[in-house]
């Protein structure tokens, strides 16, 4: 199986954006540190903290960032400099250059940024690994494949029952065990019973809760492709020390198609750990239309991987 693709926010995938700033050449190198000190006081970089103040070059003079052009709301000359540098010794005349507008968060952006101006870069090791295309080891890939295949069987089972071909499996990765298996039920007059919503309710059943009266087959444990949940929670032991599972905390979801906005937010409410899905869809809310898993303002974020076994899942959604 191929490596799943991590679904990160635009912050990580966007190209480097640039802005104009005023810089000047340092005409007297010996005064560099004094100039840096003065500018730090009278013209702090504010939202351009990622820029190194001084740019050196092999043969040319040192350049130093002065400030951003004044933003003139009246629509007049946009390239005015508000800073008076006449009193600072050792500086040449100001001129505009293009610099990266935001701090780089990936190595690719860092390298791209350096073409404009030297910048600070603190690499997030986890993100770097996620984007490397070899995040999952072979053994982990095998497990992802196994659970995705299970989700595909559930999707096919749904189709046989005149439902949409969407299957979902929720797994406890700490025990490598399945907690709930579901397929889509929305076509039988329950518009909200999407596969993910059903799976979440089956997890609730596994914890002694649950809401929907679901078809009987969920109790048939031998049925490979029916609705199912793990029984035996909460045990008396874990009730005592309150270590029983809480909603979907720490669990992984495997689902054949990208969840819609309702299901994605249901996963936020349920505190899901990670989501693996097969095929993206235009109205999807984990990367396509929305990216609920890293939506600013929400109190729970989670990792999402797409293209999981997508060669197989795509076949579920291409007309035939």
């Amino acid at each position: 199986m191929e490596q799943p693709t991590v679904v990160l926010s635009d912050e990580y995938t966007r190209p480097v954006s640039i802005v104009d700033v005023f810089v000047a050449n340092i005409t007297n190198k010996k005064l560099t540190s004094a100039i840096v000190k003065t500018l730090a006081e009278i013209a702090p970089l504010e939202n351009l903290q990622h820029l190194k103040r001084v740019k050196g070059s092999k043969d040319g003079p040192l350049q130093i960032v002065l400030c951003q052009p004044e933003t003139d709301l009246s629509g007049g000359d946009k390239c005015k400099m508000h800073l008076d540098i006449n009193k600072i010794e050792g500086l040449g005349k100001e001129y505009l250059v293009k610099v990266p507008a935001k701090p780089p968060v990936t190595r690719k952006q860092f390298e791209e940024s350096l073409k404009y101006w030297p910048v600070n870069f603190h690499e997030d090791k986890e993100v770097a690994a996620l984007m490397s295309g070899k995040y999952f080891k072979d053994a982990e890939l095998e497990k992802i494949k196994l659970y995705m295949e299970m989700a595909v069987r559930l999707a096919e089972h749904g189709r046989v029952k005149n439902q949409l071909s969407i299957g979902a499996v929720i797994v406890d990765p700490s025990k490598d065990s399945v907690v709930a298996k579901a397929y889509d039920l929305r076509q039988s007059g329950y518009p909200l019973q999407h596969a993910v919503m059903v799976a979440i309710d089956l997890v609730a059943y596994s914890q002694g809760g649950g809401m929907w009266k679901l078809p009987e087959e969920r109790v048939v444990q031998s049925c490979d492709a029916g609705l199912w949940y793990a029984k035996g929670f909460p045990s008396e032991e874990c009730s005592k020390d309150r270590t029983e599972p809480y909603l979907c905390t720490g669990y992984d979801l495997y689902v054949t198609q990208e969840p819609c906005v309702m299901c994605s937010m249901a996963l936020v409410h349920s505190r899901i750990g990670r989501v693996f899905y097969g095929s993206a869809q235009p109205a999807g809310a984990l990367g396509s239309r929305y990216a609920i898993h890293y939506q600013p303002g929400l109190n729970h974020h989670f990792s999402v991987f797409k293209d999981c076994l997508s060669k197989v899942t795509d076949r579920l959604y291409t007309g035939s």
Partner: protein
Amino acid sequence: MNAKEWMRKEDMTTALDCHLGWMRKALGFAQRALEAQEVPVGCIIIYDDKIIANGGNEVNKTKNATRHAEIIAIEEVRTYCAEKKLSSKDVFKSSILYVTVEPCIMCAGALRQIEIPLVVYGCRNERFGGCGSIIDVSCDKAITSNIGPTFDAISGVLADDAVSLLKNFYKGENVNAPDSKRKVKKEQRS
């Protein structure tokens, strides 16, 4: 008054009276949720000038974080429709949903799918709101073909009453959360 009639209604004072009356009923279900130690959000669905379904938050009782008042009320409509031998699809299209707090992103997605034309709510939901507070699912035309049509939303009806119920609830702590999740609060107190 059903949704269609409401849309035609020109007498705004009557409409407002109507909204206030129904919202008081919804607040009653929020109060009930509070008494059951659930997040106090209440909801009713009006069809043919009658309450045909109601709901209060039942997350703790069901151990299912998706059991919001709106979801419960939506499902109750099925029972009503079965009794009256009506198509729930048609009923939803002529209904108004009243809820004490702005529907969350999940519920807004659910409300699009049942094709309800009008939602009236009390206070804003700054943490999870799906009608503009976090994102605006209610009127996003880009997802219409998959999720269903947009719906209109009227906000601010008896918002203060909804807020004071929520404040009452959050004074206490969630007794159903495991210890690891509750630690912070305890430490803060001591």
